């Protein structure tokens, strides 16, 4: 039991330290009385703290275990049961997110009590509900992407590394490091067509109230379309993978 508790505590400390790091970097970069890249200190700090909260909602996932399942052959156990395999993992994802979110909220409260940072609070109910909906789409999108990455397991036993590299690369495109609209306009316009901005950047911008209603619906539509495309792709790859899985005799 002690090992559980210890690793649990260490995990939360790591998350909390990450939160502090990001906060202090931006707190020292941002000027107190003027704006930088069109962001006031308040908005920028809300943005970077928001990315941390979204990390615990959108990016916490169990889908990497699908690859382990495939590689170890334990996938067979699931295939033998009358069970929707992806539904099963989505349910596990949701439980993982619930736990993550619960702890993040506690930590953020502590953080506020200690540092009382200047934050922007959105009060418009419509924007808030659109924010929640965009988070929901982001959760679906990340789930499908995570499942797709794990499909590598059918063809290679090296899944961890490509997955890791992939997430490092997309963390640039999701807006996890900085708000994407400080990039040159043409590049930003291009990124808007990719699915990644809808994982983090887009929901936060909705929360901050910096996107017009028409653009919000455009964004929601694009991410919905991506979910459809990637989900279809996932099924094609999954069925290909299953025949391959069999052939390897695992």
């Amino acid at each position, binding site marked *: 039991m002690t090992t559980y508790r210890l690793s649990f505590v260490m995990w939360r400390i790591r998350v909390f330290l990450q939160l502090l790091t990001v906060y202090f970097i931006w707190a020292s970069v941002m000027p107190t009385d003027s704006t930088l890249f069109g962001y006031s200190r308040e908005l920028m700090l809300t943005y970077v703290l928001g990315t941390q909260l979204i990390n615990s909602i959108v990016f916490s996932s169990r889908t990497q275990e699908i690859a382990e399942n495939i590689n170890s*052959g*334990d996938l*067979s*156990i699931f*295939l*033998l*049961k*009358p*069970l929707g395999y992806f539904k099963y993992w989505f349910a596990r994802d949701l439980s993982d997110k619930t736990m993550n979110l619960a702890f993040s909220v506690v930590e953020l409260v502590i953080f506020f009590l200690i540092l009382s940072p200047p934050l922007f609070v959105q009060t418009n109910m419509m924007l808030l509900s659109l924010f929640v909906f965009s988070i929901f789409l982001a959760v679906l999108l990340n789930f499908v992407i995570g499942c797709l990455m794990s499909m590598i397991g059918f063809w290679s036993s090296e899944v961890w590394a490509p997955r890791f590299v992939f997430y490092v690369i997309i963390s640039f495109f999701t807006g996890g490091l900085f708000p994407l609209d400080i990039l040159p306009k043409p590049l930003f316009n291009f990124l808007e067509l990719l699915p990644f901005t809808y994982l983090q950047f887009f929901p936060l911008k909705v929360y901050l109230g910096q996107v017009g209603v028409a653009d919000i619906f455009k964004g929601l539509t694009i991410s919905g379309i991506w979910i459809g495309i990637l989900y279809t792709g996932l099924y094609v790859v999954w069925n290909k993978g299953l*025949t391959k899985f*069999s*052939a390897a*005799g695992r």
Partner: protein
Amino acid sequence: MSPIISVRDLKKYYQIHEKEPGISGTIKSLFNRKYSDAKAVDGISFEIEEGELIGFIGPNGAGKTTTLKVLSGLLHPTSGDVEVLGHKPWIRRNEFLKQFALIMGQKNQLWWDLPAIETFLLNKEVYDVSDLDFDKRLKELSRLLDVDDFLTVQVKKLSLGQRMKMELIAGLIHEPKLLFLDEPTIGLDVVMQKKMRDFIREINELKKTTVILTSHYMQDVKELAKRVIVIDHGKILFDGSLSTIIKKFANTKVITVVLEKPVPKADFSEFGIVKESDPLNLSISVKREKVAQVAEVLLKKYPVEDLNIEEVGIEDIIREVFEAKS
């Protein structure tokens, strides 16, 4: 009544990539890959009626597990007709999946960090088992297997035998009509093996569950199965009752002799095939009808201290089946 399983001319070939040894082989294989077929199952046919208990016997790589995997829908066959419980297994319809279980001695479905009861409860939901049925079956199974006290213990704290019992409960909580057991007694001690066999027999008799069992331990098959299917190199060598196979192949008996002083081995070769473990201990396989006569000669002519006449072991018979056909 139509059979619960019918297999006609089932073939399952795996494509294997061949590579020549060394770096040049590696480079060649980058440009020109050679593939060959491994014939895991090569044209087998059989039918199984409801309520049967059947033993699959064969050496490693004979195609036993591949066959079970095709029957349980994990593999698509390369060719041939397979029908299990009225379904094509590989389509994996829920109605089909709810009616059978495949339990593998080397793969487990139990949640490692949780007590076994949690896995049972999860399976209860997955298989839509009612509360009433669940309680009744759990009580019955844990009584038969004698694991009442361990249901709430973390799986990782259980012994191998206890864990295997829990695997069985997890696989049987939905009361499958058809049960595939792949090496259920592997790694278990003799006592536990016996308990496991008693349990399998009971399930087959009480619930009329059709059981197909593969095992390396001939004892399992000998005690449990009335019908055996012997398979090697993907082909069926024998399909029939155990007594038939013994009659057909065991036309010899074994005479073991303990001598007082060494006698040249060649002296005995006129009686049959001689095996010598040391100069004073010999065993001779002798044709059934000549056993009495040979024993008499041995006792008269040689300094024999002790003499024993035995039936050939089932292991040896099976080995003979394999050697005769290959």
